[in-house]
């Protein structure tokens, strides 16, 4: 029996809720009602699945990584290929769902925050496809390190709004998007990019991302034909991980979320929210976050813009707290090595975010027996990261 989280108040155990300015209470209520109505409407669900299939390229492949399996000499390694989704990452699943909902609600304008730019591109894409006006908030540092995605958003007709507060990364872009929404909530739909934010966002984004896990389960059972023993996914806000994990929560599968340890969890420069953070409120929900002794949110660090976030979705906080999912942290260095290994052995350049999941999985797979199977969610492709990758490896040539 699947657990029904969140509860009516948007709570996952202690976590979640709606910690927002009063002005947002009404739009959140409006959103929740529209969402519940839509999710109960077969036509809406059919439209969502239709767009995923005919436009976005679902189902994405389940690839057996024979060469890397052989090289590591342990468990059989499978990859769920969200890198093959239109625009290059899982983010589009959710953007499609929310854009359809926005249309249904009669909203002509959407806003989004973005870190790696993948959610920004996904949002700009659905805005173009569904004829919506789109503004994307993006930190200045991220604009620098994810330049191709910035250009893609602009080409797609979105306005990219640079955010200079803080360190100019995802947290700051999210703050700014929320501030904008407060002022424009009457005609604007806020299309959040991960399972974060106030209720009902974490639930909505999860439900639009669980297609990853549902498909994987079906494909695995068709192929292997048993469930995998382990599943790995990287965790920034946590949407690809929740999307993958959720349908397996009640199964006998060990689920592993992988955070960014940056330059090491014992340094000041990491984004290992669960490993090193504490309870607190960020972007409207009670969860774990990186903060100082006074409750000021600290600046995270990761080589990957998409994991460079000091919070984490409340459902992950709950799964961590209740020990239903194991969370590990992987450094920049380990992630980049895994990226290189996958590229050279399987001919797949993963997103730097996804490389974190790969690194942890590879580490563990080596020591498993050959009858074990593991599944890694390859949340996105690395094309957006070429500059970062080039920079990282340039010393080695």
């Amino acid at each position, binding site marked *: 029996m699947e657990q029904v989280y969140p509860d009516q108040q948007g709570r996952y155990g202690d976590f979640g809720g*709606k910690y927002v300015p009063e*002005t947002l*209470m009404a739009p959140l209520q409006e959103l929740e009602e529209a969402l519940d109505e839509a999710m109960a409407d077969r036509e809406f669900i059919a439209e969502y699945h239709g767009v995923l299939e005919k436009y976005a390229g679902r189902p994405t492949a389940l690839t057996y990584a024979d060469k890397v399996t052989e090289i590591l000499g342990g468990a059989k390694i499978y990859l769920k290929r969200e890198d093959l989704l239109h625009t290059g990452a899982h983010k589009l699943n959710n953007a499609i769902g929310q854009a359809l909902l926005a249309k249904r609600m009669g909203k002509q304008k959407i806003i989004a925050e973005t870190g790696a730019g993948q959610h920004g591109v996904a949002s700009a894409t659905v805005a173009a496809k569904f004829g919506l006006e789109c503004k994307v908030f993006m930190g200045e540092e991220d604009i620098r390190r994810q330049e191709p995605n910035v250009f893609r958003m602009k080409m797609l007709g979105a306005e990219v709004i640079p955010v200079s507060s803080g360190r100019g990364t995802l947290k700051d872009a999210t703050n700014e998007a929320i*501030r904008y929404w407060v*002022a424009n*909530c009457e005609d604007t739909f806020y299309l959040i990019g991960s399972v974060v934010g106030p209720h009902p966002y974490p639930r909505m984004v999860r439900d639009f991302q669980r297609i990853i896990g549902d498909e994987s389960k079906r494909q695995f059972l068709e192929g292997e034909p048993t469930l995998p023993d382990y599943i790995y996914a990287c965790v920034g806000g946590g949407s690809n991980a929740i999307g993958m994990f959720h349908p397996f929560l009640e199964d006998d599968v060990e689920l592993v979320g992988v955070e960014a340890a940056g330059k090491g969890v014992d340094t000041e420069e990491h984004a290992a929210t669960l490993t090193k953070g504490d309870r607190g409120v960020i972007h409207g929900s009670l969860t774990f976050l990186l*903060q100082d002794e*006074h409750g000021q949110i600290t600046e995270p660090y990761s080589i990957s813009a998409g994991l460079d976030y000091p919070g984490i979705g409340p459902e992950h906080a709950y799964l961590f707290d209740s020990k239903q999912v194991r969370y590990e942290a992987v450094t920049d260095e380990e992630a980049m090595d895994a990226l290189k290994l996958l590229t050279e052995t399987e001919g797949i350049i993963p997103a730097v975010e996804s490389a974190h999941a790969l690194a942890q999985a590879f580490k563990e797979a080596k020591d498993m027996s050959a009858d074990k199977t593991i599944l890694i969610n390859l949340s996105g492709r690395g094309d957006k990261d070429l500059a970062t990758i080039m920079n990282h490896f340039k010393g080695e040539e």
Partner: protein
Amino acid sequence: MLTQTSFQGKLNKTEDLFIPFIEAGDPTPEVTIDLALKLQEAGADILELGIPYSDPLADGPTIQRAAKRALDNGMSLQQAIELIPDMRANGLEIPVVVFTYYNPVLRIGEEKFFKLLEEHGAEGVLIPDLPHEESESVRELALKHDIEYISLVAPNSEERIQKIASEARGFLYCVSTLGVTGGENQLSSEVTDFIQKVKEHSPVPVAVGFGISTNEDVQMIRQHADGVIIGSKIIRLVEAEVENLKDDSKRHEALNRFYENVRELVE
């Protein structure tokens, strides 16, 4: 509740209230005390003492800058509260409402937070990211510690207005417009209807805030509400003098200029 709260005890009137906002530690703790006293001198009825926060979701660029100046100087929630006795020692008599985001409160612990407020002579608290539905336990604690928990209502609060207003304590903070602090405010006729509706349900004075930045704004609000809350505009007056306020030899004159500007705004 039959006995008077400390907040009520310190509040001289319940109409035509002037409620300015300053950020603790902006630009220094000492200046914050001076500013509080100058504001009282300029007619402030309640002081909103802001706790600088790294990620102030409900605030626009002006208050973000103030928070940054204060945080760069190392200000924290506890230190900010500890300024209140110093203000009192220097003659501050009006009620002090501590304005803080929820995360620093959680971090220090809700119990400890209210104890600190009570011990240091604060009379109220306002947590902009803790809406009515999430604030039950906090409101109970506040009550227990003789602290007024200030609620907010917004033009889009709709059916919730009645509930929030009827349970309001201290004063009720009416957000005059959708948006973060520091925007421009155009008071429409809808807003006056909204204020009217709020007043019908509120047992406490109704004050209006967000985007009030000119004497005309103030005059207009006075016609409809029991008080005006002025945040960003006050911060901008501080900002204009920020270097002088930090300079011992120039502070006195800067404070006087600040006083004159505030008077002009509210007289």
